[in-house]
């Protein structure tokens, strides 16, 4: 499918382990943190049906991150709960977009659209990954990703052409979110190895596809996409540099776990 010339590796043991773990960690951390953020809407959604849908997608994301932490566990990393609940902010490799506070629903929707479009494309590329467990997981979660993007696109088309207020709110959120969204594609320290060994087609390829997708969707609304060429991406997430918002999120997320880390759930 992608014309990036993947070089298939014989086994995972011959792969660069540092690069492979880095790739899995950043995808997993994105999903866990955004899953947690989106779950903060549970009970506060703008209408009952949307509350259910948004919460359900948040659960999907946490389920996907769990599958990835299990994969890391098989590669020698600590257990999923340990990895999710005991690391500090500077050990997380998520992009900064996902850790930003929810703000109003317009921002959460725009973030959902910007992130999930990239996420679905990332997994589409990962179906070709030389690391087989990633390729298999990519096929397993295809349906979830399809729903997430369908949900995001439908809302963006709906509110992006509805009232003066809805359009201006989405527009403002797009402008706030876009520099952070460009940070999704920050290259990891081992990006070269990740691409060379065929684990993933790479952030450049992903960004190219993402821009085409979001431009197409925004063109069907009355919104204007901020020009990505003149914006500076918010970077740092992929090397553990975060905004002041991540640590409080982690503290809250791990509060119950830390009361009794040995408890069986």
């Amino acid at each position, binding site marked *: 499918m992608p014309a990036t010339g993947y070089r298939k590796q014989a086994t995972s043991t011959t792969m660069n382990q540092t690069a492979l773990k880095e790739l899995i960690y950043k995808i997993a951390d994105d999903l866990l943190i955004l899953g947690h953020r989106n779950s903060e809407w549970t009970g506060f959604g703008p209408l009952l*049906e949307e509350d259910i849908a948004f919460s359900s*997608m948040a659960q999907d994301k946490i*389920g996907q991150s769990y599958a990835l932490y299990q994969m890391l566990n098989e590669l020698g990393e600590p257990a999923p709960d340990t990895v999710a609940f005991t690391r500090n902010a500077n050990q997380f490799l998520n992009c900064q977009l996902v850790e930003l506070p929810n703000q109003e629903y317009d921002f959460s929707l725009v973030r959902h659209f910007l992130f999930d479009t990239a996420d679905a494309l990332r997994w589409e590329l990962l179906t070709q990954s030389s690391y087989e467990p990633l390729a298999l997981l990519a096929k397993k979660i295809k*349906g979830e990703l*399809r729903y997430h993007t369908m949900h995001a696109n*439908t809302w963006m088309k*709906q509110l992006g052409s509805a009232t*003066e*207020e809805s359009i201006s709110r989405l527009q403002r959120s797009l402008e706030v979110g876009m520099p952070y969204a460009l940070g999704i594609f920050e290259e990891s320290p081992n990006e070269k190895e990740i691409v060379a060994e065929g684990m993933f087609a790479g952030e450049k390829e992903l960004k190219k596809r993402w821009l085409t997708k979001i431009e197409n969707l925004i063109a069907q609304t009355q919104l204007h996409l901020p020009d990505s060429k003149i914006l500076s991406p918010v970077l740092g997430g992929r090397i553990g540099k975060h905004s002041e918002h991540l640590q409080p999120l982690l503290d809250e997320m791990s509060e119950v776990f830390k009361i009794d880390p040995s408890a069986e759930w």
Partner: protein
Amino acid sequence: MKSLDPRVTRLPHIGEVKLKKSLDQFGTFEVFVQAKEGKAFQHEGAIHAPNLEMAYVLAKETFTRRFTCVSIYVVDTRDVFVSPTTEGNKSAYDLIAKNVEGTIKQTFEIYHLPKRGKLHVHVGSVEASSPEAAMINAKELFGTGKIVYNIWAIEHNKIRFTSSEDKDLWNTLPEKKFRDASDYKGGDKLKEFLERVKN
């Protein structure tokens, strides 16, 4: 700018006394679910949405997030033709007005309510020029002699179906037990705890 945000529109201000406006709410849409390939679609309930497409997107999570499902469809509540309802003494098919004909033939989907308290189940489709005529035709085709408490007829082209590509929507991670309270085995843990306290 005119705002729909209640935090803005409810701000106190001095003004004239007015009549109460009708409620600002979305309309409703009926949701039908197919649990397995080959099984009939069944009515599951209604949801609120601004339009048919949004209704489809919201119905998916509202009605199919836990149970097995292969397909859904939605239709505006106002597009559902409802027969008179019986209390079981006779079939709803016997209460349809005859000779109500329209001009253009269309396809109608037909649904039976097999019992009070149950949900409407899809039984098939018929060509007819009016919903009444559709139900009369349906009696020939699907009226098995059993009592039907109520009949619905919906024009086929008013329904938002699941496309073949969208069938993937239900192809998800199977390990979702963490979504169910039962997975946390609360009862077992409580029992264990009570045993411990007793001894």
